[in-house]
């Protein structure tokens, strides 16, 4: 019998500490150091359900395990995707794996972007760098139910034009009449004809109604800090700004305490938090 990865809540897993062997179906290089895997259970296709914003623990045998957000379309239940940047020991080992290789997967874990709660509102997505990957499933879900939402705005900042994630998809999204996509880079060569400047500079003129908007923010913590400040300056309330937090996660089910963040565990209570819940500790070096 093929293994079943159908888990809508972390508690539903038979044994959340037991990795399911999964095979890499496809590898796609996104940028110089970032790649996307398409995965399936090694025993054959199995239905895989997740909520946008959740993550899996990926275990490279003999090397280690890392939490990686799911970057695929939640409507695709036959396979699932992870977009990873090779920056550490495990992720560099991941980079060496090829289609057909097997690794262990636990999950999905964690909280989700508030897609349902955003119905009837404008949705502002602000992503920085690889932070676009955990937001891609949210955008896929929003676009699949487009009529339920007001304006949808994607503001994306990358380091250089060469570091822009999912460029073809961004071009396709930008071609839609019912989606506003703005991209900026921190630095550029002469050939780049788009925006230059940090992603926060896109917020003041972005077309959304602050009193009726929900914001989804993912990127490096310092980028999120300035982004939240700018979103609040535009008038979005703290409880309608959602941030994706990152800490050193190990067990992913709130046992080990590695990812404790004030009174919460990132793995179990996060990674997605309404900003008003973390506001008092957000950006504090001691936490």
């Amino acid at each position: 019998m093929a293994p079943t990865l159908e888990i809508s809540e972390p508690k539903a897993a038979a044994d959340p500490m037991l990795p399911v062997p999964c095979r890499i179906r496809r590898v796609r290089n996104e940028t110089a150091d970032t790649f996307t895997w398409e995965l399936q259970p090694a025993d054959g296709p199995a239905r895989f359900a997740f909520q946008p914003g959740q993550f899996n623990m990926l275990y490279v045998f003999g090397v280690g395990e890392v939490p990686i957000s799911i970057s695929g379309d939640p409507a695709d239940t036959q396979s699932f995707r992870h977009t990873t940047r090779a920056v550490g020991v495990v992720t560099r080992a991941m980079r060496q794996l090829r289609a057909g290789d097997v690794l262990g997967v636990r999950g999905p874990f964690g909280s989700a972007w508030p897609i349902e709660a955003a119905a009837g509102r404008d949705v502002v997505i602000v992503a920085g760098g690889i932070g676009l990957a955990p937001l891609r499933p949210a955008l896929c879900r929003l676009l699949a139910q487009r009529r339920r939402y007001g304006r949808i705005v994607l503001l994306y900042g990358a380091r250089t034009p060469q570091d822009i994630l999912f460029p073809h998809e961004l071009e396709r999204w930008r071609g839609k009449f019912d989606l506003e996509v703005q991209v900026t880079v921190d630095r550029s060569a002469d050939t780049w004809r788009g925006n230059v400047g940090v992603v926060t500079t896109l917020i003041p003129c972005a077309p959304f109604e602050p009193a009726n908007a929900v914001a989804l923010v993912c990127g490096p913590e310092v980028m999120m800090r300035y982004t939240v400040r700018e979103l609040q300056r535009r008038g979005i309330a703290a409880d309608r700004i959602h941030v994706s937090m990152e800490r050193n996660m190990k067990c992913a089910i709130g046992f080990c305490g590695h990812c404790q963040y004030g009174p919460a565990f990132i793995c179990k209570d996060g990674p997605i938090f309404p900003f008003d819940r973390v506001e008092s500790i957000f950006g504090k070096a001691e936490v």
Partner: protein
Amino acid sequence: MTTTTLEPIIREQPFFSGFEDKYLKLIVSCAKNVRFDEGDLVFREGDPANQFYLIREGMVAVHVMASQKGLVTVQTVGQGDILGWSWLFPPYRWHFDARTVRPTRALAFDGKCLRTKCEQDHGLGYEFLKRFTRIVVERLEATRLQLLDVYGAHS
């Protein structure tokens, strides 16, 4: 003629909201429409800074010449943005180059005239200083974020 045409446009810009009517009329009298083709130089580093611009359409890149890296774009400004603050602060010379990335329409404001008016009426001067100081602070924050290289491999 110019005044009646540009006043409604200037009034609806968030940058000018809160100016008293007497000041707005004065500002309007110092404004004119300008157009630039793609690749046009708007101003050059070191030249006298006697204008500022409100971009109505298009995009302008702010460059700095770095000897090792050549011409580096440090910022772009687009629709609704203000370009140029050097007109308000001595020595009234541009600190960067600015060149259009796309065909651009803008309102150009006579900074030399406005500077004189600000000296004569400090109420006007304070209103301008509040607004331009905020722009300078925002750009300082943005520059610091750029310097942090937040998307770099070691961030």
